[in-house]
């Protein structure tokens, strides 16, 4: 038995098969990015050449110049995505808790309604909302864009949190309270460590969904709130592979960083638990 365990498990506790599939997954994720990177430094690239015939940093020069407004857009996109993530947590956590922990009349209907924005195309929602946002004075503002991004991000957050809380015993909080923790301490030391993996996944979803919003940003932002997808789509639809590549490299950066962090956290969950719940 011991010998057998030795064969299927490598030192790290993962079988070679798992390593192989991980390697495939990474390849599958990273490989499409290679042409993007090459395009961003290509001067000309003709079919069927395997590599560009001339290289140039022109696309990068343009992208990093003030004319392109890519760097301010990066900041705007980041602020909006972070704000949306925080708001999604503030709304999605209690909502997910209510859905996950309690049974009440009309719960199935509410769950369906929460899912609706993920099924209904964004443009349909946005066209109707545009007038509302205009009247509220939110159109063309960063806060307006932030709020409208909640439409596609909240369903993910609420459903992920509902799933987390469905397997959660709220008595653990009561136990902590009885042992002398106040509300905040009970949340910090008991609730948070238990829901953290789900919370991170939900936040990751919220961040990336906000990060990639195009039509909602365009319509509610009215062009005055310029995010990276807007600039990216300008050039992608025009067939400018070099500039699209360069903006694309910047565009995927935060997502990659987040994914790496999330992956690291998920794989080292036990250690991370200890760290967050350290007494």
């Amino acid at each position, binding site marked *: 038995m011991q010998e057998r365990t030795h064969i299927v498990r490598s030192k790290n506790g993962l079988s070679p098969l798992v390593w192989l599939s991980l390697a495939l997954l990474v390849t599958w994720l990273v490989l499409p990015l290679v042409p993007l990177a090459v395009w961003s430094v*290509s*001067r*000309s*690239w*003709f*079919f*069927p050449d395997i590599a*560009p*015939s*001339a290289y*140039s940093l022109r*696309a990068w020069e*343009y992208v990093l*110049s003030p*004319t*392109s*407004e890519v760097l301010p857009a990066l900041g705007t996109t980041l602020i909006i995505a972070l704000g949306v993530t925080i708001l999604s947590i503030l709304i999605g956590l209690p909502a997910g808790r209510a859905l996950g922990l309690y049974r009440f009349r009309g719960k199935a209907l509410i769950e369906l309604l929460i899912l609706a924005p993920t099924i209904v195309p964004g443009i349909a929602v946005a*066209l109707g909302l*545009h*007038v509302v946002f*205009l*009247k509220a004075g939110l*159109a*063309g503002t960063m806060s307006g864009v932030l709020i409208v991004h909640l439409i596609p991000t909240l369903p993910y957050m609420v459903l992920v949190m509902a799933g987390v809380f469905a397997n959660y015993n709220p008595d653990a909080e009561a136990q902590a309270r009885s042992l002398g923790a106040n509300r905040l301490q009970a949340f910090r030391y008991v609730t948070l460590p238990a829901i953290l993996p789900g919370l991170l996944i939900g936040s990751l979803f919220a961040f990336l969904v906000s990060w990639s919003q195009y039509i909602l940003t*365009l*319509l509610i932002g*009215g*062009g*005055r709130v*310029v995010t990276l997808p*807007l*600039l990216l*789509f*300008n*050039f992608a*639809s*025009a*067939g*400018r592979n*070099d*500039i699209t590549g360069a903006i694309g490299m910047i565009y995927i950066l935060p997502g990659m960083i987040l994914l790496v962090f999330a992956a690291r956290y998920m794989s080292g969950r036990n250690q991370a638990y200890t760290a967050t719940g350290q007494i």
Partner: protein
Amino acid sequence: MTGTRFIFRTFRRYCCHFAIFAILTYPLTIHASEAEFKNWDEVVDAAKGGTVNWFLWGGADNINAYVSDYVGGELKKRYDITLNRIGLSDTAEAVNLVLGEKQAGNDDNGSVDMIWINGGNFRTMKQGDLLYCGYTDLLPNNQLVDWTDPSIANDFGLPVDGCEVPWNRAQFAFAYDIARTETPPESIAALIDWVKQNPGSFTYPAASDFNGSVFIRHVFYHAAGGVEKLLGPFDQTTYDAVAPKAWAILNDMKPYLWREGTTYPNSIASLAQLFANQEVSLYFDYDPAIFGINVENGIFPETTRSYGLADGTIGNINYVAIPYNSPNKAAAMVTANFLLSFEAQFEKAKADVWGAAPAIDVARLRQEEQTHFAALPRNPAVIAPEILARHALPELHPDWISAIETGWQEYVAK
């Protein structure tokens, strides 16, 4: 490369929205045509320190740089106006914005001050009373515009009526690689034969693409034996007589197209890619400047050349327009006036800047300014606009265009 393709593409989809909105908002409609300024000095004074939010297609770095750096810089320097360029992928997005604002009752503090526009989007905005009109005579540089030219006074068959200011001229042209193709076909009739002799070397984007639609119209003109019968409002009888011939030509061509016509590129960018990859031998675009830009960008080979057709190619003017609810009308007017100036038009015409044909009548410029234009070096890939303009064909009424696009989907694509 002009805004035309982008502004026009979504016209029909947009028309439906508009019809509904127009009905809903009809009682609220107010006419936004009366000019509020007595003379140009008042406009310039009012514009000082203002901001212009200019919404325009943003898919070309050279156009973006021209607008942001050159136009923006000059406006700041000369008039203390801040130009805010807002890049779009589709001009209809800006039209939608103004429409939404009107629906919400935002009649004086809109977010759009200027739009690069023509065709269906202009029709939508003009007929929906979404435009600020009647100010063109105030602009000093308006005298450089030849309003007697019907192709300027009419935007896709709709009278401009002082609701927009011309900016660029665009005319359809073909491009080829002299290293690969010695004698490209120079008429639609010749193209039909050429395609059959060179199977797999030609294709055109589907009718849903702006440029694809324009190509199909050229075939339609050819089938009709000339454009004259097709001018004016849509006529079903004429359509029924011409359409079968046009579809027959295109269907005969089909087996000789790239991939035997089983599929069509879904955008002009795809066709550019096919040409760059040497999969097809011919490329075309409504804006010949794109040929030079693509060569500059290394997308097309240096040996790219372009030409018009002996029986003419379709041309149009594209404009800038000011929405009725712009809070910065004076600054927008100063911007529009500056765009018409010799300096701005000349800068724009430089091949290394943009290479766009001027919308002003060069003959109305001072002598030395005309010489500048004449001496302008041009990318060898771009055919001279004046040569192209010798054989120009007008655009059709949008109803015609719509009918042709629908017919192509029905009888050719299937």
